[in-house]
């Protein structure tokens, strides 16, 4: 039941991405190309999604003491605005500007079966795993130094 409900939420997200044009790199890149063939459609995606989420989260937090299938709401606890957050985001933006896919656009687009989406996603997974391994190694070294 839990998993079926969650699957349906994923389906809704994937359908939304498909309808919105976020799964289409040509459209995404034209959104960023203000000096060229500018296509402002994605402003409407962000606007619609933000308005619904802004209002919906408030209703959920006010009306529900806890989530339906989980003991509590788990919200990101990190507060620091540091070089890691900004640097990571800038690198993400460069990759997004080169390829035209972001993770939320590419994952649903895998369902179209297009080879280009699978190629991008394989590279995305490689980058993600390499970064996580590096972060783990660095955290381990820092802990080692703290002990000695």
């Amino acid at each position, binding site marked *: 039941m839990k998993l079926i409900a969650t699957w349906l939420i994923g389906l809704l997200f994937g359908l939304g991405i498909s309808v919105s044009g976020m799964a289409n790199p040509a459209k995404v890149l034209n959104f960023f190309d203000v000096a060229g063939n500018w296509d402002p459609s994605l402003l409407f*995606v962000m606007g619609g999604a933000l308005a619904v989420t802004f209002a919906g989260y408030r209703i959920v937090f006010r009306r529900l003491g806890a989530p339906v299938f989980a003991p509590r709401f788990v919200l990101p606890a990190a507060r620091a605005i540091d070089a890691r957050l900004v640097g990571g985001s800038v690198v993400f933006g460069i990759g997004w500007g080169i390829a035209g896919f972001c993770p939320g656009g590419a994952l649903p687009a895998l369902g179209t079966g297009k080879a280009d989406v699978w190629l991008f996603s394989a590279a995305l997974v490689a980058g993600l795993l390499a970064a996580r391994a590096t972060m783990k190694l660095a955290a381990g070294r820092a802990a080692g130094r703290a002990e000695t």
Partner: protein
Amino acid sequence: MITDFTPFASLAGGILIGTAAVLLMAVQGRILGATGVLAGVLIPAQSSDRAWRAALLAGMVAGPLAYMLLTGQMPAVEVPVSKPALVLGGVLVGIGVSYGSGCTSGHGICGMARLSPRSIVATLSFMLSAAITVFVIRHVIGGA
């Protein structure tokens, strides 16, 4: 490549994406971020978390099929860049979202909707760097 301006379809898609984010919070109590979902499936922290993330990811991938059932065609996926550019972009996106702790869905929608200062800074950073990257590729290097 010129694309059509689609304000109504894009707004409708945005509303569906937002609805999914709100429902996931109501049901699982979690942020709907594609980065977190993917990382959670690839690198399991807790087994119970991995199961629902895998279900969410499977639903996402089925999205284009639902679109086809409703409209009779697959959503357009036009890739105006080369294969090496896709690979380079993919690796950079994977590294960037790991260090930046999120992407367009997690920071740009869920985090901004919570008015999280971290997410607002992250979103401005990746939107601006993507726009600069596209400008450099298309108008400085490409000259098109």
